[in-house]
């Protein structure tokens, strides 16, 4: 592996699914420290399932997940937060009837008492001024993009080392998408690792270091983002069928 980018997260042969349905059939990949890695793949490839499995929301039936050298397979979200991992799921995940400030605050619920939550909230509001403006309004009054910002800010409250972020751009205006991606780039600059699932593959890969292509629960390609961007097979993959001949 690259010397300056050591592996921070590794999945080894993960099998997981819902009930009788198996979605992940031995997913294996590595994520390098302080990079943005984007997972792409057609619908049903198991992208969101990977995140749920990493974050202990779905039981891995086989395989191991390692974070910073320790085995974190099938542990609780609480433990993972303590390890420095946070998860921003797809869709809207705010508490609509709580105020913006209180939504933020709950991001620190699992924090040890040594951390001053109020200071962290203050810092988050400095970083995202819109949240200060709306601090005492119900979170449901925020626009879609603002809600996503709130979610990210909430996830960042504990200064995570690794962020799992699922489809951050869905339902956001292009301007908002740009802003979200800028935040992610800033985080990377500070040494945070980001693993992202994104449907908007092109723009996501443009800000990424690495890219992973998932298909039917398996890692199909693991390349640098640039390689993937220039690979015509990626486009074809989404439309099916044409991958085999060139891949061989």
């Amino acid at each position, binding site marked *: 592996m690259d010397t300056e980018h050591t592996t921070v997260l590794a999945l080894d042969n993960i099998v997981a699914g819902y009930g009788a349905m198996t979605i992940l059939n031995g997913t294996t990949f590595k994520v390098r420290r302080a990079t943005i890695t984007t997972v792409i793949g057609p619908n049903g490839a198991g992208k969101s399932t990977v995140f749920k499995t990493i974050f202990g*929301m779905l039981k891995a039936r086989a395989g191991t997940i390692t974070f910073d050298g320790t085995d974190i397979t099938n542990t609780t*979200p609480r433990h993972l937060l303590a390890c420095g991992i946070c998860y921003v799921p797809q869709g809207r995940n705010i508490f609509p009837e709580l105020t913006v400030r209180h939504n933020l605050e709950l991001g620190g*619920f699992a924090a040890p008492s040594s951390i001053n939550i109020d200071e962290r909230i203050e810092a988050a509001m400095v970083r995202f001024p819109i949240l200060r403006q709306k601090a005492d309004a119900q979170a449901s009054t925020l626009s879609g993009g603002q809600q996503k910002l709130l979610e990210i800010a909430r996830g960042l409250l504990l200064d995570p080392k690794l962020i799992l972020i699922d489809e951050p751009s869905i339902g956001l205006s292009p301007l908002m998408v740009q802003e979200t991606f800028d935040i992610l780039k800033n985080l990377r600059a500070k040494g945070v690792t980001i693993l992202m699932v994104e449907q908007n593959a092109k723009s996501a890969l443009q800000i990424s270091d690495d890219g992973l292509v998932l298909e039917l629960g398996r890692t199909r390609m693991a390349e640098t983002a640039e390689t993937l961007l220039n690979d015509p097979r990626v486009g074809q993959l989404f439309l099916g069928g044409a991958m085999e001949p060139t891949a061989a």
Partner: protein
Amino acid sequence: MAAFIQLFVSGLATGAIYALVAVGFMLLWQTSQTINFAQGEFVMIPAFFVLWAIKILGVGFWPAVGIAVLASLLILGLLFKRAIVDPMLKHGVLPLVISTIALSIFLKEAVKDFYSSQAQPFQAMIPSEDLHLFGAVISSQSIFILLIASAAVLGLNKLLNGTRLGRAMQATAQNPSVARILGIPVERMIMYTFLINALLVALASLMISPIYLAKFTNGDTLGLAAFIAAIVGGFNQVRGAIVGGLILGVIENLAAAYISAQYRGAIPLILLIVVILWRPQGLMGRAEERTV
């Protein structure tokens, strides 16, 4: 006018008790989808804890109240959740409904068989006196109940909105899976709501038993009142349950006086049916968001 004020205030007092019971009922529904058909019996029981403690342990009234509150927390809170709700949740709503119906029969029969089937006099927490306000005679009990219930509601509000713990409980009710992602111990939060419910019903029991006397059938009307208050007010709002309870208490009292004493119980039921059909989300509630 004096008569109206009198009826209104005493209705408000009963309504305040309904509201407490309805708030507890709704908290359980919000955090764990428990429709507690034994909620009425939960209000009936703590009074008998008090009587039992006085009779068997030979303690005075106030120590007995302490014991009763403790017993409520343990039995109606902890044990109820652990022994009945938890094992049943995976089976869905209907088996849990049936279980709580069975529980209500169990509690009722237990009191009847092991204590008494007769109505028992129950000491009020403060001596009863009549106060004269604007020409109306209002019992000190009513005022006391209103004060205590308001204090309880304010306290609960302070807990739910004013503390980090309370907000974590709200978060659990609003979106348990996200709460879990943030590391909120969802299970413990749900347990807290069961304990809060136990406290609320104990309080209601202590206030209503001096008026109705302690009797094993008290739960029948109280449970129904709590459902109605919760539904009329809106299932997803604490303040809805409070408003629902107060409206119910007042309407019941006024209807008994001005419409028909015999159909006193019918008015709230008709109100319930109309609200469910016309505004299923309740008067104060928001419509649940459509999931497509």
